């Protein structure tokens, strides 16, 4: 008897529609486009800053327009989604063993949120906002 195993085709482009967990994964991965956009914006901001206060002020003024505000809000939403979805899986990568037990994941996730909050406060303090 000869063998003739059948290999089922796999869609290279639409596989993530096959299950909600794959869509959830893609929603996390897609956010990197917005994080990349923010990084680019920061590079442009540095370049404008190097050109003097007048150029930088006009750059900041341009960012207060309705489309820029909408874009920045979108970046904020996706950046928060990116950060929280990664924070929530950190116990898998960084288990903390205490004797024969492991520290509950909520403490590891919580520590990330605490550090995030403190870092945000520090940045706002340096910026003179708080």
């Amino acid at each position, binding site marked *: 008897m000869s063998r003739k195993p*059948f290999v*089922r085709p*796999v869609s290279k482009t639409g596989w*993530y529609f096959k299950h909600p967990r*794959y869509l959830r994964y893609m929603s996390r991965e897609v956010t990197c486009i917005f994080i990349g956009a923010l990084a680019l914006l920061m590079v442009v901001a540095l370049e404008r800053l190097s050109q003097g206060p007048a150029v930088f002020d006009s750059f900041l003024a341009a960012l207060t327009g309705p489309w820029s505000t909408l874009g920045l809000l979108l970046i904020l939403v996706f950046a928060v989604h990116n950060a929280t979805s990664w924070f929530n899986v950190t116990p898998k*990568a960084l288990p903390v063993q205490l004797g024969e037990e*492991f520290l509950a994941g909520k403490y590891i996730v919580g520590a990330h949120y605490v550090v995030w909050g403190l870092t945000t406060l520090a940045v706002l303090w340096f910026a003179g906002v708080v």
Partner: protein
Amino acid sequence: MKERMVQLEVMRYNPEVDAEPHFQHYEVMCQEEWVVLDALNAIKESIDPTLSYRWSCHMAVCGSCGMMINGEPKLSCHAFLRHYEGVIRVEPLANFPIERDLVTVADDFMDKLKRVKPYLIPKDEKSLEQGEYKQTPAQLMKYRQFSMCINCMLCYAACPEYALQPQFIGPAAITLAHRYNQDSRDGGRLARQEVIATNEGVWECSFVGACSEVCPKAVDPAGALQQVKVASTLDWFKEHLIPGGEPK
């Protein structure tokens, strides 16, 4: 004893006759407490003796009855009929070639399993007279979860990376390598790293996490793979930034 008529759509493939798989509809009287495997056994016994599938223990230990049940990788001995409504669709495990009906070709997984050296390579060889290799409960707990794998391959069926990049060593094999790497008695990590800390190893994993969601033994392969990534990254930094920091 409560009974109900259950409808199943089972994927069939006879390599001697069929060009490709097709679905066959069955109706079978089942008892309330039965699992999908019981329904398949009832079909084989009373309706269609040609139906092929693997099973052995019927108690989620042997890992041989993995199938796609309504599109989800499941042990068919662990999938209770009372949790399903309407027609239950049963297919062979995804991402593996179909040998016949619900039987898949597991050769690729078996080869990868061998490559990661899933056995204890003692750090210090001892003679029988020197006694056993002792371990504290805390040392055992470090890897115990990862030793629960039953090689059922559900994690491979759920992993889109394995579906798209079949050269990926995959969740269960890397998890088993990690299990031995974490064992205080083992000294084989460097040899395993050559296989798992590579592009075909952990770096093919993009942390979808599906493997851990479908694992019937709560092994958490996704966790194991991320821990291997962290350890391999630390190896790289030690090797490149600390003189004499090469992993030993």
